[in-house]
Protein backbone atom coordinates (compact mmCIF):
# COMPACT_ATOMS: atom_id res chain seq x y z
CA UNK A 1 0.00 0.00 0.00
CA UNK A 2 2.65 2.49 1.12
CA UNK A 3 5.13 1.15 -1.37
CA UNK A 4 2.90 2.17 -4.24
CA UNK A 5 2.32 5.65 -2.87
CA UNK A 6 5.98 6.59 -2.37
CA UNK A 7 8.48 6.94 -5.13
CA UNK A 8 11.89 5.29 -4.95
CA UNK A 9 13.36 8.75 -4.37
CA UNK A 10 11.05 9.22 -1.37
CA UNK A 11 12.22 5.90 0.07
CA UNK A 12 15.82 6.91 -0.44
CA UNK A 13 15.26 10.23 1.34
CA UNK A 14 13.49 8.53 4.23
CA UNK A 15 16.24 5.91 4.53
CA UNK A 16 18.95 8.55 4.62
CA UNK A 17 16.91 10.70 6.99
CA UNK A 18 16.66 7.78 9.40
CA UNK A 19 20.47 7.45 9.39
CA UNK A 20 21.04 11.17 9.73
CA UNK A 21 22.78 11.29 6.34
CA UNK A 22 20.78 14.14 4.77
CA UNK A 23 21.90 17.72 4.24
CA UNK A 24 19.85 20.38 6.10
CA UNK A 25 17.74 21.31 3.08
CA UNK A 26 16.67 17.72 2.31
CA UNK A 27 16.18 17.06 5.99
CA UNK A 28 13.75 20.01 6.26
CA UNK A 29 11.92 18.85 3.15
CA UNK A 30 11.48 15.31 4.54
CA UNK A 31 10.28 16.60 7.92
CA UNK A 32 7.68 18.75 6.19
CA UNK A 33 6.36 15.75 4.31
CA UNK A 34 6.37 13.59 7.44
CA UNK A 35 4.09 16.02 9.23
CA UNK A 36 1.82 16.53 6.23
CA UNK A 37 1.50 12.99 4.85
CA UNK A 38 0.81 10.03 7.16
CA UNK A 39 2.06 7.50 4.62
CA UNK A 40 5.50 9.03 4.94
CA UNK A 41 5.43 8.51 8.69
CA UNK A 42 4.20 4.95 8.24
CA UNK A 43 7.00 4.22 5.81
CA UNK A 44 9.59 5.65 8.15
CA UNK A 45 8.24 3.51 10.99
CA UNK A 46 8.60 0.42 8.85
CA UNK A 47 12.22 1.29 8.02
CA UNK A 48 13.06 1.91 11.68
CA UNK A 49 11.50 -1.39 12.68
CA UNK A 50 13.51 -3.21 10.05
CA UNK A 51 16.73 -1.59 11.09
CA UNK A 52 16.10 -2.41 14.76
CA UNK A 53 15.56 -6.05 13.92
CA UNK A 54 18.70 -6.22 11.78
CA UNK A 55 20.72 -4.65 14.58
CA UNK A 56 19.65 -7.55 16.78
CA UNK A 57 21.05 -10.08 14.36
CA UNK A 58 23.28 -12.46 16.33
CA UNK A 59 26.98 -11.87 15.93
CA UNK A 60 28.76 -15.09 15.08
CA UNK A 61 31.89 -15.95 16.98
CA UNK A 62 34.92 -16.49 14.81
CA UNK A 63 35.74 -20.20 14.54
CA UNK A 64 39.47 -19.43 14.91
CA UNK A 65 41.94 -16.63 14.75
CA UNK A 66 42.80 -15.44 11.29
CA UNK A 67 46.27 -14.19 12.15
CA UNK A 68 48.81 -14.81 9.45
CA UNK A 69 51.98 -16.87 9.60
CA UNK A 70 55.09 -15.99 7.70
CA UNK A 71 54.50 -18.97 5.43
CA UNK A 72 51.06 -17.61 4.48
CA UNK A 73 52.47 -14.40 3.08
CA UNK A 74 55.67 -15.63 1.46
CA UNK A 75 55.97 -14.05 -1.97
CA UNK A 76 54.93 -16.54 -4.58
CA UNK A 77 57.96 -17.67 -6.53
CA UNK A 78 57.12 -17.73 -10.16
CA UNK A 79 59.03 -20.50 -11.93
CA UNK A 80 61.69 -19.18 -14.24
CA UNK A 81 60.22 -20.97 -17.20
CA UNK A 82 56.99 -18.96 -17.07
CA UNK A 83 58.58 -15.68 -18.23
CA UNK A 84 60.62 -17.74 -20.67
CA UNK A 85 57.39 -19.12 -22.08
CA UNK A 86 55.97 -15.64 -22.40
CA UNK A 87 59.03 -14.29 -24.22
CA UNK A 88 59.39 -17.32 -26.42
CA UNK A 89 55.79 -16.96 -27.48
CA UNK A 90 56.51 -13.36 -28.48
CA UNK A 91 59.56 -14.45 -30.46
CA UNK A 92 57.62 -17.19 -32.19
CA UNK A 93 54.88 -14.72 -33.05
CA UNK A 94 57.45 -12.36 -34.61
CA UNK A 95 58.88 -15.13 -36.76
CA UNK A 96 55.39 -16.11 -37.84
CA UNK A 97 54.56 -12.52 -38.78
CA UNK A 98 57.77 -12.31 -40.82
CA UNK A 99 56.85 -15.47 -42.64
CA UNK A 100 53.40 -14.12 -43.41
CA UNK A 101 54.89 -10.84 -44.57
CA UNK A 102 57.30 -12.68 -46.83
CA UNK A 103 54.27 -14.05 -48.64
CA UNK A 104 52.18 -10.91 -48.72
CA UNK A 105 54.60 -7.99 -49.22
CA UNK A 106 56.09 -7.83 -52.76
CA UNK A 107 59.56 -6.90 -51.53
CA UNK A 108 59.63 -9.78 -49.12
CA UNK A 109 58.17 -12.11 -51.69
CA UNK A 110 61.07 -11.33 -54.05
CA UNK A 111 63.50 -12.48 -51.39
CA UNK A 112 61.49 -15.49 -50.47
CA UNK A 113 61.00 -16.73 -54.02
CA UNK A 114 64.66 -16.65 -55.01
CA UNK A 115 64.80 -20.38 -54.75
CA UNK A 116 61.60 -20.61 -56.73
CA UNK A 117 63.08 -18.61 -59.55
CA UNK A 118 66.09 -20.85 -59.57
CA UNK A 119 63.78 -23.77 -59.95
CA UNK A 120 62.05 -22.08 -62.87
CA UNK A 121 65.39 -21.33 -64.44
CA UNK A 122 66.39 -24.91 -64.21
CA UNK A 123 63.13 -25.83 -65.86
CA UNK A 124 63.72 -23.41 -68.69
CA UNK A 125 67.18 -24.69 -69.09
CA UNK A 126 66.03 -28.23 -69.83
CA UNK A 127 67.36 -29.82 -73.00
CA UNK A 128 65.62 -28.45 -76.04
CA UNK A 129 65.09 -31.92 -77.34
CA UNK A 130 62.35 -32.33 -74.80
CA UNK A 131 60.55 -29.14 -75.70
CA UNK A 132 58.61 -30.36 -78.71
CA UNK A 133 57.26 -33.18 -76.65
CA UNK A 134 55.87 -30.91 -73.93
CA UNK A 135 53.40 -28.84 -75.86
CA UNK A 136 52.77 -27.88 -79.40
CA UNK A 137 51.50 -24.49 -78.34
CA UNK A 138 54.56 -23.61 -76.32
CA UNK A 139 56.61 -21.38 -78.55
CA UNK A 140 60.01 -20.52 -77.09
CA UNK A 141 61.42 -17.02 -77.05
CA UNK A 142 62.97 -15.68 -80.22
CA UNK A 143 66.40 -15.23 -78.73
CA UNK A 144 66.63 -18.76 -77.51
CA UNK A 145 69.36 -21.13 -78.59
CA UNK A 146 69.25 -22.84 -81.94
CA UNK A 147 66.52 -25.46 -81.95
CA UNK A 148 66.92 -28.93 -83.18
CA UNK A 149 65.37 -29.87 -86.49
CA UNK A 150 64.08 -33.34 -87.03
CA UNK A 151 63.59 -34.56 -90.55
CA UNK A 152 61.42 -37.24 -91.94
CA UNK A 153 63.38 -40.15 -93.24
CA UNK A 154 66.74 -38.35 -93.35
CA UNK A 155 68.25 -34.94 -93.97
CA UNK A 156 66.96 -32.95 -96.91
CA UNK A 157 69.13 -32.04 -99.85
CA UNK A 158 68.20 -28.45 -99.31
CA UNK A 159 66.34 -26.45 -96.77
CA UNK A 160 62.63 -27.17 -96.65
CA UNK A 161 60.83 -23.92 -96.29
CA UNK A 162 57.19 -23.47 -95.44
CA UNK A 163 56.40 -27.05 -94.49
CA UNK A 164 53.46 -27.16 -92.17
CA UNK A 165 52.86 -23.47 -92.30
CA UNK A 166 53.71 -20.95 -89.64
CA UNK A 167 54.19 -22.63 -86.31
CA UNK A 168 52.03 -21.29 -83.57
CA UNK A 169 51.04 -18.34 -85.70
CA UNK A 170 47.51 -19.46 -86.42
CA UNK A 171 46.50 -17.59 -89.52
CA UNK A 172 49.93 -17.00 -90.95
CA UNK A 173 50.48 -17.32 -94.62
CA UNK A 174 52.87 -20.21 -94.32
CA UNK A 175 55.60 -18.51 -96.20
CA UNK A 176 57.82 -18.05 -93.22
CA UNK A 177 61.17 -19.66 -93.27
CA UNK A 178 61.32 -22.68 -91.02
CA UNK A 179 64.76 -21.63 -90.01
CA UNK A 180 63.67 -18.31 -88.67
CA UNK A 181 63.39 -17.90 -84.90
CA UNK A 182 60.04 -18.86 -83.48
CA UNK A 183 58.92 -20.78 -86.52
CA UNK A 184 57.64 -24.30 -86.12
CA UNK A 185 57.67 -26.58 -89.08
CA UNK A 186 55.28 -29.45 -88.86
CA UNK A 187 54.03 -32.33 -90.91
CA UNK A 188 54.55 -32.68 -94.61
CA UNK A 189 50.92 -32.75 -95.39
CA UNK A 190 49.24 -29.34 -95.14
CA UNK A 191 45.97 -31.07 -94.21
CA UNK A 192 47.40 -31.94 -90.83
CA UNK A 193 48.09 -28.29 -90.03
CA UNK A 194 50.18 -29.24 -87.07
CA UNK A 195 51.69 -25.80 -86.73
CA UNK A 196 48.39 -24.05 -87.07
CA UNK A 197 49.22 -22.42 -90.39
CA UNK A 198 46.49 -21.80 -92.90
CA UNK A 199 48.28 -23.13 -95.90
CA UNK A 200 51.80 -24.13 -96.65
CA UNK A 201 53.57 -23.08 -99.77
CA UNK A 202 56.05 -25.54 -101.05
CA UNK A 203 58.84 -23.55 -102.58
CA UNK A 204 61.11 -26.47 -103.16
CA UNK A 205 60.26 -30.03 -104.17
CA UNK A 206 60.56 -32.54 -101.35
CA UNK A 207 63.65 -34.65 -101.80
CA UNK A 208 62.42 -37.50 -99.63
CA UNK A 209 59.20 -39.47 -99.72
CA UNK A 210 56.24 -38.40 -97.63
CA UNK A 211 55.19 -40.72 -94.87
CA UNK A 212 51.74 -42.25 -95.12
CA UNK A 213 49.07 -40.25 -93.31
CA UNK A 214 47.66 -43.10 -91.21
CA UNK A 215 51.00 -43.55 -89.57
CA UNK A 216 51.26 -39.90 -88.62
CA UNK A 217 48.19 -39.66 -86.44
CA UNK A 218 49.15 -42.10 -83.72
CA UNK A 219 52.58 -40.55 -83.55
CA UNK A 220 51.17 -37.12 -82.94
CA UNK A 221 48.79 -38.33 -80.29
CA UNK A 222 51.30 -40.31 -78.37
CA UNK A 223 54.01 -37.71 -78.90
CA UNK A 224 57.54 -38.68 -79.72
CA UNK A 225 59.66 -40.09 -76.97
CA UNK A 226 63.26 -39.72 -76.09
CA UNK A 227 64.56 -43.03 -77.40
CA UNK A 228 62.92 -42.36 -80.75
CA UNK A 229 64.32 -38.88 -80.97
CA UNK A 230 67.77 -39.96 -80.08
CA UNK A 231 67.73 -42.24 -83.09
CA UNK A 232 66.92 -39.42 -85.46
CA UNK A 233 69.64 -37.43 -87.06
CA UNK A 234 69.49 -33.86 -85.95
CA UNK A 235 70.92 -30.80 -87.50
CA UNK A 236 71.09 -27.54 -85.62
CA UNK A 237 69.62 -24.54 -87.35
CA UNK A 238 69.14 -20.97 -86.35
CA UNK A 239 65.94 -19.96 -84.65
CA UNK A 240 63.95 -21.39 -81.81
CA UNK A 241 60.87 -23.37 -80.99
CA UNK A 242 59.99 -26.98 -81.34
CA UNK A 243 60.25 -28.54 -84.75
CA UNK A 244 58.21 -31.56 -85.45
CA UNK A 245 59.25 -34.36 -87.61
CA UNK A 246 58.63 -37.98 -88.27
CA UNK A 247 60.57 -40.94 -87.23
CA UNK A 248 62.78 -42.82 -89.59
CA UNK A 249 61.27 -45.45 -91.82
CA UNK A 250 62.37 -48.25 -89.55
CA UNK A 251 60.42 -46.84 -86.61
CA UNK A 252 57.34 -45.72 -88.45
CA UNK A 253 54.21 -47.62 -87.50
CA UNK A 254 55.77 -49.08 -84.40
CA UNK A 255 54.23 -48.43 -81.01
CA UNK A 256 56.96 -47.20 -78.75
CA UNK A 257 56.82 -47.18 -74.96
CA UNK A 258 55.99 -43.77 -73.61
CA UNK A 259 58.72 -42.84 -71.25
CA UNK A 260 59.78 -39.49 -69.97
CA UNK A 261 63.35 -38.47 -70.33
CA UNK A 262 65.21 -37.86 -67.08
CA UNK A 263 65.68 -34.20 -67.89
CA UNK A 264 61.97 -33.83 -68.56
CA UNK A 265 60.92 -35.50 -65.35
CA UNK A 266 63.25 -33.32 -63.36
CA UNK A 267 61.68 -30.31 -64.98
CA UNK A 268 58.24 -31.50 -63.91
CA UNK A 269 59.34 -31.99 -60.32
CA UNK A 270 60.99 -28.58 -60.33
CA UNK A 271 57.74 -27.02 -61.49
CA UNK A 272 55.89 -28.12 -58.33
CA UNK A 273 58.60 -26.87 -56.00
CA UNK A 274 57.99 -23.10 -56.15
CA UNK A 275 54.33 -23.55 -55.26
CA UNK A 276 55.04 -25.88 -52.37
CA UNK A 277 57.68 -23.53 -50.96
CA UNK A 278 55.14 -20.75 -50.50
CA UNK A 279 52.60 -23.11 -49.08
CA UNK A 280 55.15 -24.54 -46.69
CA UNK A 281 56.02 -21.05 -45.47
CA UNK A 282 52.37 -20.27 -44.81
CA UNK A 283 51.86 -23.57 -43.03
CA UNK A 284 54.96 -22.93 -40.94
CA UNK A 285 53.72 -19.45 -40.07
CA UNK A 286 50.31 -20.80 -39.04
CA UNK A 287 51.89 -23.48 -36.89
CA UNK A 288 54.18 -20.93 -35.24
CA UNK A 289 51.30 -18.57 -34.54
CA UNK A 290 49.28 -21.37 -32.97
CA UNK A 291 52.33 -22.32 -30.91
CA UNK A 292 52.79 -18.72 -29.77
CA UNK A 293 49.15 -18.41 -28.74
CA UNK A 294 49.33 -21.73 -26.90
CA UNK A 295 52.47 -20.76 -25.01
CA UNK A 296 51.02 -17.41 -24.04
CA UNK A 297 47.76 -18.89 -22.76
CA UNK A 298 49.58 -21.66 -20.90
CA UNK A 299 51.90 -19.13 -19.24
CA UNK A 300 49.01 -16.91 -18.14
CA UNK A 301 46.99 -19.83 -16.78
CA UNK A 302 49.92 -21.29 -14.91
CA UNK A 303 50.83 -17.93 -13.43
CA UNK A 304 47.27 -17.33 -12.24
CA UNK A 305 47.12 -20.80 -10.76
CA UNK A 306 50.38 -20.32 -8.88
CA UNK A 307 49.44 -16.90 -7.55
CA UNK A 308 46.04 -18.06 -6.33
Amino acid at each position, binding site marked *: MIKGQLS*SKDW*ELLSSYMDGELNPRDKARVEARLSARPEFQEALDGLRRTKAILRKAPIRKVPRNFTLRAADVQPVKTPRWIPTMQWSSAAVALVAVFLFASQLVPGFRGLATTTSEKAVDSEMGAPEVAQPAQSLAAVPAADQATPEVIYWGGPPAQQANGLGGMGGGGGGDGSVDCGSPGAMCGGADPKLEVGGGAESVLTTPMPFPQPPIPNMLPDLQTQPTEPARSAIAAEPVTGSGPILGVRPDADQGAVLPETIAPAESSAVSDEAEPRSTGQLLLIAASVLLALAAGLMIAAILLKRKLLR
Partner: protein
Amino acid sequence: MDEAELIHQATQGNLDAFNRLVLTYQEMAFNLAFRMLNDDAAAEDATQTAFISAYRNLRAYRGGSFRAWVMRMVTNTCYDELRRRHRRPTVPLEPVNVEDEEEIENPSWLADDSPSPEDQVESKELEKAISHCIQGLPEDFRAVVVMVDVQGLDYAEVSDAMGKPLGTIKSRLARARGRLRDCLAGFRELIPSFFRLGEEVISS
Protein backbone atom coordinates in the same frame (compact mmCIF):
# COMPACT_ATOMS: atom_id res chain seq x y z
CA MET B 1 50.34 1.54 19.80
CA ASP B 2 47.55 3.14 17.80
CA GLU B 3 46.05 1.89 14.57
CA ALA B 4 47.96 4.28 12.31
CA GLU B 5 51.27 3.11 13.78
CA LEU B 6 50.28 -0.52 13.41
CA ILE B 7 49.35 0.08 9.79
CA HIS B 8 52.67 1.85 9.17
CA GLN B 9 54.67 -0.99 10.68
CA ALA B 10 52.64 -3.58 8.81
CA THR B 11 53.39 -1.72 5.60
CA GLN B 12 57.09 -2.06 6.45
CA GLY B 13 56.63 -5.83 6.63
CA ASN B 14 55.96 -6.23 10.33
CA LEU B 15 53.66 -9.24 10.41
CA ASP B 16 53.02 -8.98 14.16
CA ALA B 17 51.69 -5.46 13.74
CA PHE B 18 49.42 -6.64 10.96
CA ASN B 19 48.17 -9.55 13.07
CA ARG B 20 47.11 -7.14 15.77
CA LEU B 21 44.98 -5.41 13.19
CA VAL B 22 43.63 -8.81 12.16
CA LEU B 23 42.55 -9.53 15.72
CA THR B 24 40.72 -6.22 15.82
CA TYR B 25 38.72 -6.75 12.65
CA GLN B 26 38.45 -10.50 12.22
CA GLU B 27 35.00 -10.80 13.82
CA MET B 28 33.54 -8.09 11.65
CA ALA B 29 35.20 -9.56 8.57
CA PHE B 30 33.98 -13.06 9.33
CA ASN B 31 30.40 -11.89 9.98
CA LEU B 32 30.31 -9.90 6.76
CA ALA B 33 31.61 -12.92 4.86
CA PHE B 34 29.04 -15.15 6.54
CA ARG B 35 26.15 -12.80 5.70
CA MET B 36 27.37 -12.60 2.12
CA LEU B 37 27.96 -16.31 1.62
CA ASN B 38 25.58 -17.86 4.18
CA ASP B 39 28.06 -20.67 4.84
CA ASP B 40 30.46 -21.01 7.77
CA ALA B 41 33.25 -22.84 5.97
CA ALA B 42 33.11 -20.57 2.94
CA ALA B 43 33.07 -17.52 5.20
CA GLU B 44 36.15 -18.84 7.03
CA ASP B 45 38.05 -19.35 3.80
CA ALA B 46 36.98 -15.96 2.48
CA THR B 47 38.08 -14.20 5.66
CA GLN B 48 41.51 -15.84 5.61
CA THR B 49 41.96 -15.08 1.92
CA ALA B 50 40.88 -11.49 2.47
CA PHE B 51 43.47 -10.93 5.22
CA ILE B 52 46.24 -12.47 3.12
CA SER B 53 45.19 -10.25 0.24
CA ALA B 54 45.10 -7.24 2.55
CA TYR B 55 48.65 -7.88 3.75
CA ARG B 56 49.97 -8.31 0.23
CA ASN B 57 48.24 -5.15 -0.97
CA LEU B 58 48.91 -3.05 2.08
CA ARG B 59 50.94 -0.57 0.06
CA ALA B 60 47.78 0.22 -1.89
CA TYR B 61 46.11 1.53 1.25
CA ARG B 62 45.92 5.31 0.90
CA GLY B 63 44.63 6.31 4.31
CA GLY B 64 41.03 6.76 5.42
CA SER B 65 39.06 4.15 7.32
CA PHE B 66 41.19 1.03 7.65
CA ARG B 67 38.07 -0.87 8.72
CA ALA B 68 36.39 0.07 5.44
CA TRP B 69 39.52 -0.96 3.53
CA VAL B 70 39.52 -4.38 5.20
CA MET B 71 35.80 -4.75 4.50
CA ARG B 72 36.54 -3.99 0.88
CA MET B 73 38.97 -6.90 0.78
CA VAL B 74 36.35 -9.15 2.34
CA THR B 75 33.63 -7.98 -0.04
CA ASN B 76 35.82 -8.53 -3.09
CA THR B 77 36.77 -12.00 -1.90
CA CYS B 78 33.11 -12.83 -1.35
CA TYR B 79 32.22 -11.57 -4.83
CA ASP B 80 34.92 -13.86 -6.26
CA GLU B 81 33.46 -16.78 -4.37
CA LEU B 82 29.92 -15.95 -5.48
CA ARG B 83 31.09 -15.69 -9.10
CA ARG B 84 32.80 -19.05 -8.76
CA ARG B 85 29.55 -20.51 -7.44
CA HIS B 86 27.68 -19.10 -10.42
CA ARG B 87 30.21 -20.65 -12.79
CA ARG B 88 30.15 -24.02 -11.07
CA PRO B 89 26.76 -24.34 -9.44
CA THR B 90 26.47 -27.28 -7.11
CA VAL B 91 23.60 -29.66 -7.71
CA PRO B 92 21.66 -30.27 -4.50
CA LEU B 93 20.87 -33.79 -3.44
CA GLU B 94 17.24 -34.14 -4.32
CA PRO B 95 14.94 -35.81 -1.82
CA VAL B 96 12.65 -38.63 -2.76
CA ASN B 97 8.93 -38.10 -2.67
CA VAL B 98 7.57 -40.60 -0.16
CA GLU B 99 4.34 -41.08 -2.08
CA ASP B 100 5.62 -42.11 -5.47
CA GLU B 101 9.28 -42.62 -4.54
CA GLU B 102 10.38 -40.34 -7.33
CA GLU B 103 12.92 -37.60 -6.96
CA ILE B 104 11.52 -34.14 -6.43
CA GLU B 105 13.08 -32.27 -9.34
CA ASN B 106 12.33 -28.80 -8.05
CA PRO B 107 15.19 -27.79 -5.70
CA SER B 108 12.91 -25.29 -3.97
CA TRP B 109 12.71 -27.78 -1.12
CA LEU B 110 15.95 -26.21 0.04
CA ALA B 111 14.34 -22.82 0.48
CA ASP B 112 12.56 -22.89 3.75
CA ASP B 113 10.07 -20.11 3.15
CA SER B 114 7.92 -20.80 6.17
CA PRO B 115 9.87 -21.00 9.41
CA SER B 116 9.25 -24.14 11.35
CA PRO B 117 6.60 -23.61 14.09
CA GLU B 118 8.28 -26.29 16.14
CA ASP B 119 11.34 -24.17 16.61
CA GLN B 120 10.59 -22.28 19.83
CA VAL B 121 13.88 -20.58 20.29
CA GLU B 122 13.15 -17.08 19.12
CA SER B 123 16.72 -15.99 18.65
CA LYS B 124 17.23 -18.90 16.30
CA GLU B 125 14.10 -17.87 14.49
CA LEU B 126 15.40 -14.35 14.25
CA GLU B 127 18.69 -15.58 12.86
CA LYS B 128 16.83 -17.78 10.44
CA ALA B 129 14.56 -14.94 9.34
CA ILE B 130 17.40 -12.48 8.87
CA SER B 131 19.56 -14.97 7.00
CA HIS B 132 16.66 -15.96 4.79
CA CYS B 133 15.75 -12.37 3.95
CA ILE B 134 19.32 -11.19 3.39
CA GLN B 135 20.04 -14.10 1.09
CA GLY B 136 17.04 -13.08 -0.97
CA LEU B 137 18.70 -9.76 -1.80
CA PRO B 138 20.90 -9.09 -4.81
CA GLU B 139 24.59 -9.36 -3.88
CA ASP B 140 25.30 -5.62 -4.08
CA PHE B 141 22.27 -4.77 -1.89
CA ARG B 142 23.30 -7.51 0.55
CA ALA B 143 26.77 -6.09 1.12
CA VAL B 144 25.47 -2.56 1.71
CA VAL B 145 22.69 -3.43 4.14
CA VAL B 146 24.93 -5.80 6.15
CA MET B 147 27.66 -3.19 6.50
CA VAL B 148 25.25 -0.39 7.49
CA ASP B 149 22.47 -2.10 9.45
CA VAL B 150 24.21 -5.15 10.87
CA GLN B 151 27.74 -3.86 11.38
CA GLY B 152 27.09 -0.18 11.85
CA LEU B 153 29.43 1.36 9.26
CA ASP B 154 28.54 4.84 8.06
CA TYR B 155 27.76 5.69 4.44
CA ALA B 156 31.22 7.05 3.67
CA GLU B 157 32.90 3.91 4.91
CA VAL B 158 30.57 1.73 2.89
CA SER B 159 31.23 3.91 -0.13
CA ASP B 160 34.97 3.31 0.36
CA ALA B 161 34.49 -0.37 0.97
CA MET B 162 32.32 -0.86 -2.11
CA GLY B 163 34.20 1.57 -4.31
CA LYS B 164 30.88 3.17 -5.29
CA PRO B 165 29.61 6.77 -5.05
CA LEU B 166 27.62 7.82 -2.02
CA GLY B 167 24.44 8.20 -4.09
CA THR B 168 24.67 4.59 -5.22
CA ILE B 169 25.08 3.46 -1.62
CA LYS B 170 22.02 5.46 -0.51
CA SER B 171 19.90 4.12 -3.32
CA ARG B 172 20.93 0.50 -2.78
CA LEU B 173 20.44 0.75 0.96
CA ALA B 174 16.92 2.19 0.61
CA ARG B 175 15.88 -0.53 -1.82
CA ALA B 176 17.45 -3.25 0.31
CA ARG B 177 15.64 -2.01 3.40
CA GLY B 178 12.33 -1.92 1.55
CA ARG B 179 12.73 -5.54 0.50
CA LEU B 180 13.84 -6.62 3.95
CA ARG B 181 10.89 -4.85 5.54
CA ASP B 182 8.48 -6.83 3.34
CA CYS B 183 10.36 -10.09 3.90
CA LEU B 184 10.63 -9.76 7.68
CA ALA B 185 6.93 -8.93 7.96
CA GLY B 186 6.31 -12.57 7.05
CA PHE B 187 8.07 -13.63 10.26
CA ARG B 188 6.10 -11.35 12.59
CA GLU B 189 4.32 -14.27 14.31
CA LEU B 190 7.57 -16.13 14.93
CA ILE B 191 9.59 -13.25 16.29
CA PRO B 192 6.96 -11.08 18.02
CA SER B 193 9.29 -9.76 20.68
CA PHE B 194 11.62 -8.34 18.08
CA PHE B 195 8.73 -6.61 16.37
CA ARG B 196 7.66 -5.22 19.73
CA LEU B 197 11.23 -4.01 20.14
CA GLY B 198 10.88 -2.31 16.80
CA GLU B 199 7.73 -0.57 17.93
CA GLU B 200 9.55 0.68 21.01
CA VAL B 201 12.28 2.09 18.85
CA ILE B 202 9.68 3.92 16.78
CA SER B 203 7.82 5.36 19.77
CA SER B 204 11.00 6.51 21.50
